[in-house]
């Protein structure tokens, strides 16, 4: 993808809109992605938050945001966004607030609250054409409650609720639910996957979405050191491997039309991505699960074959 606005690292805005000192884990990929996202949006933002790890960014009496924040509920952050957007519109239209007081309305949600429980309110907001952003940090599990399997957890990963056991040596038997496609079917103005390992791609997508009115949905891979079982230092590298192995495609859909923004032509083997993570250790020890590993590689191959 040719970037117009964010061509090099020097183009990454210097201003920080998220202060340090929060209680989030060191090396949190979701936090890095949000930090970059906020840089591209600027300061005039109000976040509507659904329950998840990032809810604990603001714990009384502390908030890291130089912007505004409303914690709503697990199921209904997009409905909160609806209320925020509608109220700002009405107040400005009625002259009770100056237009300069306007804010961009942004839902912040983990994958746990974006799938299942949150789909109702998300699809409702998208269907109504709400002018808002949705930032989903996908760490592929219900991380804040101890990393239980969520609809976003990949097949063959293990977790406290889908342990690799004698009964289920492959861990989670279900496929990762395709939130990108579910959202795309609802018809948002803009939709993209991003990764904290590719900051310029992330920032550029925000710039591309910005002039559009309507739902602008972002799905960010959030590498998770405690949940995935990684050394925090490797957090960005693992996210990069997800992209380079083709497991996490970087793509966007402008009015529904999908385009990949980074195509890994010589894809690294999926195994290289899986190896560094405790949540996949059962695929390698005590013995290699060759058949399952082959299936996982085949799924990724098939995705890219369809996309070319």
């Amino acid at each position, binding site marked *: 993808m040719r970037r117009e606005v964010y061509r090099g*690292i*020097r183009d*990454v805005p*210097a201003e*920080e809109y*998220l*202060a*340090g*000192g*929060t*209680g*989030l*884990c*060191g*090396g*949190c*990929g979701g*936090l*890095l992605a949000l*930090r*970059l996202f906020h840089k591209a949006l600027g300061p005039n933002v109000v976040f509507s938050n659904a329950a998840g*790890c990032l809810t*604990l*960014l*603001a*714990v*009384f*009496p*502390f*908030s*890291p*945001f*130089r*912007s505004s924040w409303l914690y709503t509920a697990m199921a209904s952050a997009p409905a909160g966004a609806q209320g925020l957007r509608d109220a700002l519109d009405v107040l400005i239209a009625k002259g009770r607030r100056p237009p300069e007081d306007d804010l961009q309305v942004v839902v912040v949600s983990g994958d746990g609250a974006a799938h299942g429980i949150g789909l109702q309110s998300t699809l409702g907001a998208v269907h109504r054409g709400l002018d808002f952003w949705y930032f989903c940090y996908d760490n592929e599990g219900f*991380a*804040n*409650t*101890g*990393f239980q399997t969520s609809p976003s957890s990949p097949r063959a990963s293990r977790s406290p609720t889908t342990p690799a056991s004698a009964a289920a040596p492959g861990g989670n038997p279900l496929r990762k639910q395709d939130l990108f496609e579910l959202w795309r079917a609802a018809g948002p103005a803009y939709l993209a996957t991003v990764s*904290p390992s590719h*900051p310029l791609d992330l920032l550029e997508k925000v710039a591309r979405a910005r002039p559009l009115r309507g739902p602008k949905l972002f799905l960010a891979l959030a590498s998770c*050191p*405690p*949940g995935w079982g990684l*050394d*925090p*230092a*490797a*957090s*960005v*590298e693992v996210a990069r491997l997800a992209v380079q192995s083709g497991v996490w495609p970087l793509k966007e859909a402008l009015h529904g039309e999908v385009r990949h923004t980074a195509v890994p032509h010589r894809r690294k083997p999926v195994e290289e991505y899986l190896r560094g993570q405790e949540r996949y250790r059962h695929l390698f020890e005590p013995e290699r699960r060759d058949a399952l590993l082959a299936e996982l590689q085949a799924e990724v191959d098939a995705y890219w074959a369809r996309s070319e």
Partner: protein
Amino acid sequence: MKLASRVISRSAFLSGAWVQDSPLYGAERRGAPVVASVRIAEEPIVERGTIGEPDALLVLDASLFGQAEAAVLEGVGPEAVLLLNAAEPADSLQRRFALPGRVLGADLSSLALEILGSATPSAPAAAFAVRALAIASWEALEAALRQELTEVGIEGPRLEQNVVCARRAFDQAPVVGFPPQRARASAASRPMVVPRLPAREAAPSILAPGNTERRSTAGWRVFRPEIDLARCTRCALCFALCPEGAIRLAADATPWIDSVHCKGCLVCVHECPTGAIVAVREAGA
């Protein structure tokens, strides 16, 4: 911290005591502050909940003393035994933070780093506490350690390393025992009728944007990143990729690290293309 508390209580349990242990955490994931309570008695325990006046306190992160809202010393009286995981000597810590009671220290993180390869001090901390407070014998502690570690999926060589590490901490710990049981101190607080605030001030809103800046996360670090400016090419990748935004760029693009808000995740060390950032053992952690 939860693991350490469970090993301590199970050691006592295996020695014939009645115990009760429970964690209290802000969220069930690493990085969230945790307080664990252990009660040990000869007879069944009827009380429960957080402990108001501990006889002993085990602190794995001494930098918490510097954070007022952590209220680590709440209810800790002059007779209490304080067991600290720190490289800094105990008397120095006692002076620095005006700590009450009897303070014993041990550099458990370094011990863990040396034997386990990672600064996870749960096992040696439990051993230190069990020995210092004369809670149980080594045999009981070892049995407790093996059972608790197995329950969280730590087995094989890793389990054995934890046992070795615990043994070192156990052997090195001075034995002081619990302070004598005394009648509860008279309440420092008095009852009062809750005053009604003006309604517009009564919601838990925060009107001080970005005030997490007042909180230091330096105490999280076991290693600290340091930039060798001679090798740095000013590519600014470290600035871009720091999850905390703790790396800033000067006007000439020279990076500098905000050591108050760096958590020591070491992503920058890992990502620097020229290896200009190195991880240095944090003094006093």
